[in-house]
């Protein structure tokens, strides 16, 4: 635990919901609308925390523990991700494995909470979620393996810290392939277009949204906040690779990374504005494609 690292953790906690606002404002801009305020997600979370809740008679404690333990898992995962040159509060050799598996834990619990309602819609969403994530996982871990090889480090903080502009000039193509793979994983893990459409109105076509249909009140607030945080940590990881500003000045480095994360949110918004959701059967091809990008990066790294 270090103080500079705690800053990056608290920044994540503080700013994560802002990303949802940025994405929505970008989409509104493309649609020619004014759009909701940037801080709308904060309002939503706050309002949900003030509410009571309704539970289905079918559900058990598993349903309640899904959002609670899921949020705890992503909070723990956030503690492992650095903000560029500013290290994470916790870092050790192999923390990237813990990071990937904490996100896995969050997903497992969300899926179980969905199955606990006994609704076929939520079963459908759960089934798709495990299908896509099983394919996204190898792409993520292979990508991290390439990163570990390129930077000769085994912790997320160490890897990102060592990723200077010099590494980019040496093996830029590898990092570019890696960034593409990570971006696809980010879109899939956060249920964004082209994998899943967060704005769809039909339960049959949803993935993430349909799994949380029956949650309400503070539970749903936890879910919303957890989703924002998950988007933040994966964006921070991607930006750590793409923005190699390591001047040693924490203000400058931090500002560059924060700007990068906002830019990722804008990019997600642009993707959502420019294309439609893929047909479900096409999504695995996209994810296998991400795996192929990681593999290609690995092959290039082996030369």
């Amino acid at each position, binding site marked *: 635990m270090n103080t500079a690292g705690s800053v990056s953790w608290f920044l994540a906690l503080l700013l994560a919901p802002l990303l949802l606002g940025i994405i929505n404002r970008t989409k509104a801009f493309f649609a020619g609308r004014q759009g909701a305020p940037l801080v709308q997600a904060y309002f939503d979370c706050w309002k949900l925390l003030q509410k009571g*809740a309704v*539970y289905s008679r079918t559900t058990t404690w598993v349903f309640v523990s899904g959002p609670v333990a899921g949020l*705890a898992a992503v909070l723990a995962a956030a503690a492992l991700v650095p903000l560029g040159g500013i290290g994470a509060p916790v870092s050790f050799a*192999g923390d990237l494995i813990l990071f990937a598996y904490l996100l896995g834990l969050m997903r497992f619990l969300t899926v179980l909470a969905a*199955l606990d309602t*006994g609704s076929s819609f939520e079963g459908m969403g759960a089934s798709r979620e495990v299908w896509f994530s099983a394919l996204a996982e190898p792409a993520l871990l*292979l990508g991290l*393996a390439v990163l570990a090889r390129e930077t000769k480090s085994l912790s997320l903080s160490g890897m990102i810290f060592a990723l200077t502009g010099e590494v980019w000039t040496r093996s830029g193509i590898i990092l570019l392939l890696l960034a593409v793979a990570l971006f696809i994983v980010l879109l899939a893990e956060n249920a964004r277009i082209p994998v899943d459409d967060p704005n769809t109105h039909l339960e049959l076509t949803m993935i993430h949204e349909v799994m949380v249909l029956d949650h309400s009140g503070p539970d749903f607030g936890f879910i919303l906040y957890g989703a924002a945080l998950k988007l933040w940590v994966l964006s921070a990881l991607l930006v750590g690779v793409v923005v190699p500003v390591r001047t040693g000045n924490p203000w400058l480095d931090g500002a560059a990374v924060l700007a990068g994360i906002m830019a990722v949110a804008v990019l997600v918004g642009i993707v959502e504005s420019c294309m439609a959701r893929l047909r479900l059967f096409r999504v695995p091809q996209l994810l296998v494609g991400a795996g192929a990008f990681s593999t290609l990066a690995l092959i290039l790294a*082996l030369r």
Partner: protein
Amino acid sequence: MMLLLMAVTIMVLGGLAALGVGQPRLAGRLGAGGVVVGSLMGLVPALRVLWSGSGESLSYAWSVPYGSFAVGIDPLSAFFLLPVLGISALAAVYGTEYLIPYCGKYSVRGHWFFYSLLVASMTMVLVARNAVLFLVAWELMSVASFFLVTFEHHKESVRDAGWTYLVATHVGAAFLLAFFVLLGNEVGSFDFDRIRAFGVPTSAGVLFLLAVVGFGAKAGFLPLHVWLPEAHPAAPSHVSALMSGVMIKTGIYGILRTLTFLGPPSPWWGYVLVGVGLTSGIIGVLFALAQHDLKRLLAYHSVENIGIIALGLGVGVIGAGIGSPALIVLGLCGGLLHVLNHAIFKSLLFLGAGSVFHGTGTRDIDFLGGLLKRMPWTGVTFLIGAAAICGLPPLNGFVSEFLIYLGAFRGGAVNDAAVVGTLSAVIAGLALIGGLAAACFAKAFGIIFLGEPRTDLSRTHEGGWAMRLPMVVLAAGCVLLGLLAPLALRLMAPVVAQLAPLARNVVRTELMAAAQPLAMVARGGCGLLAMIGALALLRRRLLARRTIGEGVTWDCGYAQPSPRMQYTASSFAQPLTDFFRIFLWTERRISRPSGLFPRSAALHTFTPDTYPRCCTLPCFAASYGAFRDCAGYSTAACNCTCSISPWPSWR
């Protein structure tokens, strides 16, 4: 050492006593009591050896040709003795209650006799220090487990499963015989000590392959796994727990013991192990996804986890090939720890499956649902086991997979394309296996324990304390081993030192290095649990004095959703099984709805194992063709053997 032999004797005596008494329930108490007492006694020398790091041995003359009654506990044996004795005792306690409904119908007394014999023979396999003694114990283990599998021998499916198992295990034994004959011939002795002292045998590569096939048939490597999905569902649940959790690990023990005989390993051995591990792991979990029978599903997960263990050993052997101490220690530690972890969570899951069967009378996942409300103990412990087998933090499955991952990541830095490529395949493979296992256990736990019952399950009941206690102990083991993993490494130090071609202090330094991230993982696990607690408190505070409503599950406005509208296990897994259909060849039978007012429609899917059809049966057919000419001579003898029924008539 004497204590362990006494323990084995007590087990066998308990089994004989169980055979002798008239009352089946009393037989259960005697048999299980013998196993529990014997196991507790046996654990003492095992722990002593692991703690001190120095072995104990005994040797007597034996009139069997080439044999000597040489037994010994070294750290490797002691490490494997822990799960064997621990799980045997817990499964025996469970069995006393689980078998009550079978009293009078089947031979419960015979069951307890063979149960004791199985535990005793597994112990002997681990401590035997002479090839003849080893093979005798090995054979005894196979035969005893055969009779345990065919407990419900009135059913044809059970008898078929038993024969499949017997044939598969003997194919493996044939390879082992060849292995020991070759090895013993070159060394000039069948004593393990002499074999070890001999140095490097000339045909080490051939011997290694023979061992992988021979021991792999017991461990369940693909494509030798054919008996697992047949035998595990057929056997009583506590026997499945014992066989799947522990007995298949004797195959892993055999491979490790072989590695100590053959001198420094060649790098390609590591590639073989990684290849076997990847195919077993990925294909195993895919087949598991497609199953509807809970115990069959768990059996395929054993194939998967044996694959993960092989990956760990492969990483270690590759490390030995390139001379990287970190890789050796991380790979071996990960593989060995996964042996222990898998023993714990897999037997827990099989006991849970048995409890579900005991309470509901079915093992078909699609007929169940909502059991968490009716069987809270089974539900919670099964959930812990399920999360552990998926390798989710902070449970024990994560720790061992973490070590294997870490080894693979460490090795990624070397300048050897073949090594890095293989290790990257290990990383990608583990990630895929992890994702698919999570899908499979989300399906198994979600469909069985959550939602609404899919059939009438109103008479479902939880088992008594004898069934609950072992599950609770094992679930606690999953949590504790996850949080106390750095301490477990301390116990494993002598085992790794025995296996690795490294100096003792190098092993110690590397283990210290490996324990550091594990300590952080453990701290992270505690932090996670603390955060869960804090958030749960926050939620409770927030919801205090607010209106909490109750209603039906949202189903697009329908107010009366029926349980039949729920997703089933088959529908949950369908996208994945379709995506991987090239490996699975799922068979479907559809009766489509027809007419203006369709009455009924049905879809049956069934995923049989493709390997018997594609690999094993053609092999047998070919060898039958080759040996047909000789068959005429032995038909009479064969008829004579077959006419003796293997199922005893005592009850």
